[in-house]
């Protein structure tokens, strides 16, 4: 009986994968504010904030770099992604199918789903560090890649199962969960940081900045970690969600928005989550470093538990889940676009299992900054393609959504753009030593130039054939 009800509920989950979202299902900006604030005040924040400390970002560089980078991220959502989303009201994957063709979209979706799985996996791992507190599991180090303990794997499997179950229930459930948890999580981040400040010698507001410069963000990286400057911080803050804004993954989210201005609600996620939460978690990590005499061990759960007790541990668990849930959901959409007649919940379930397996590896957490930068970079060229296809191609007399109009399985202009852009980024990285955090910006312009040039080349050659003119 219960199984029948659950199955009926799952069968009724309707996410409009292959049709525009109807007006009756549009959501106000408040839904997005809750979702963004929840999603970006999340498990990653417990890792990224400390990693800035580990990489020796100075206090001034961090405060200014985060401000500028987050502003650029909000503007990217509002002016690049949301306007296209509310005009088209279809998923990223369906849009790509129209532009790039079915086969290329399958390739993109596989890469995308894999990246989403790794990201969600890292968040499941973060939650598991808190779940593992009562079991006294040895902490992983910043340099660890492989799981070090069998009980760690068991805990990750448990956390991953719960996360997957929630994600299978669809966007409505994810949004509701994030809306309830998000205001509380934000306050826990803030409260935990305030409560530990006296341990850093801060007993008045005037003490904060000197302590920030000398004890928290000292400008000196930990052993084996590279040095971060203002530019690292700014570009990381801008591009850490590059796949979502410039890469257009959030077309799938903003297609539910009443107006493109909902794109500005991303500021809730950026300035609360990617600003105050990163600063707060950095403070918590500085206290841990002070107590452990710069130990390389790193586990967000015990760090939060030390600062805020059981509440801190629960916050890490829930923070991990609110990031992992929408990410698994997105990965499910990516895979479903490959198998269009499959049920959303079944696909999400399979994706969740793959994610849980990936979560067993601590490398996902320890190298999160590099992974997040890579993830944005790999998916970015498709965002540039969508942007140019939507705004520029028709004005230049070229056909937008060319694969659909020409009946192509692969739009070679898009395929070439994707491959050659990444090759160009790799070349810049190897030849000029430009770090991965900075490659997104030149990469976007390379993608734009390539797609324009290749579209002109391929479309002209097809139009010359009578049957396709």
């Amino acid at each position, binding site marked *: 009986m219960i199984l029948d009800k659950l199955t009926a509920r799952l069968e009724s989950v309707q996410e409009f994968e292959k049709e525009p979202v109807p007006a009756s299902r549009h959501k106000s900006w408040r839904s997005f504010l809750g979702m963004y604030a929840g999603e970006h005040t999340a498990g990653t924040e417990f890792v990224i904030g400390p990693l800035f400390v580990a990489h020796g970002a100075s206090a001034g560089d961090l405060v200014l770099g985060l401000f500028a980078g987050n502003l650029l991220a909000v503007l990217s959502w509002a002016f690049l992604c949301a306007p296209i989303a509310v005009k088209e009201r279809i998923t990223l994957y369906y849009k790509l199918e129209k532009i790039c063709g079915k086969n290329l979209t399958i390739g993109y979706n596989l890469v995308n789903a894999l990246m989403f799985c790794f990201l969600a996996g890292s968040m499941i791992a973060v939650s598991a560090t808190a779940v593992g507190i009562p079991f006294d599991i040895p902490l992983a180090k910043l340099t660890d890649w492989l799981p070090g303990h069998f009980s760690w794997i068991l805990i990750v499997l448990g956390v991953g199962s719960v996360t997957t179950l929630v994600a299978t229930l669809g966007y409505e459930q994810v949004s509701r969960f994030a809306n*309830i948890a998000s205001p509380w999580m934000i306050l826990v981040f803030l409260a935990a940081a305030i*409560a530990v*400040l006296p341990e850093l010698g801060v007993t008045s507001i005037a003490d904060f900045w000197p302590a920030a410069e000398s004890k928290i963000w000292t400008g000196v990286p930990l052993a084996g970690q590279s040095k971060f400057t203002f530019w690292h911080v700014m570009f990381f803050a801008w591009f850490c969600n590059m796949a979502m804004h410039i890469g257009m993954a959030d077309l799938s989210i903003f297609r539910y928005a009443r107006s493109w201005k909902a794109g500005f609600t991303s500021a809730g996620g950026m300035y609360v989550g990617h600003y105050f939460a990163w600063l707060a978690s950095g403070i918590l990590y500085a206290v841990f470093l002070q107590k452990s005499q710069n130990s390389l061990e790193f586990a967000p759960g015990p760090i939060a538990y030390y600062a805020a*007790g059981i509440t801190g541990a629960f916050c890490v668990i829930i923070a991990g889940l609110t990031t992992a849930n929408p990410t698994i959901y997105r990965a499910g959409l990516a895979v479903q676009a490959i198998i269009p007649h499959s049920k959303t919940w079944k696909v999400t379930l399979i994706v969740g299992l793959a994610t849980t397996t990936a979560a067993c590896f601590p490398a996902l957490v320890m190298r999160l900054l590099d992974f997040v930068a890579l993830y944005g970079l790999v998916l970015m060229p498709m965002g540039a393609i969508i942007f140019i296809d939507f705004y520029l191609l028709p004005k230049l007399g070229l056909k937008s959504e060319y694969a659909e109009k020409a009946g192509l399985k692969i739009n070679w202009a898009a395929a070439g753009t994707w491959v050659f852009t990444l090759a160009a980024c790799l070349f810049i990285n190897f030849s000029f030593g430009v770090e991965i955090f900075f490659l997104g910006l030149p990469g976007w312009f390379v993608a734009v130039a390539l797609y324009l040039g290749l579209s002109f080349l391929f479309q002209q050659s097809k139009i010359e054939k009578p049957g396709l003119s």
Partner: protein
Amino acid sequence: MKRILVGILALSGLALTLIPSVLVFAGAISTQTNKVLMAAGMLLWFTMGPFWIRRAK
């Protein structure tokens, strides 16, 4: 009346999450007391918050 009560309890949960940490910073309470109050705040928020948010909508 019920709606107001649920709202007060839910917001008390958030207040108990944040305010005690300010008191720790001011040296008025211990970190242990702070942790207990934060846990109480968490329970209040997750039991009352969903009802409050649903009613507010």
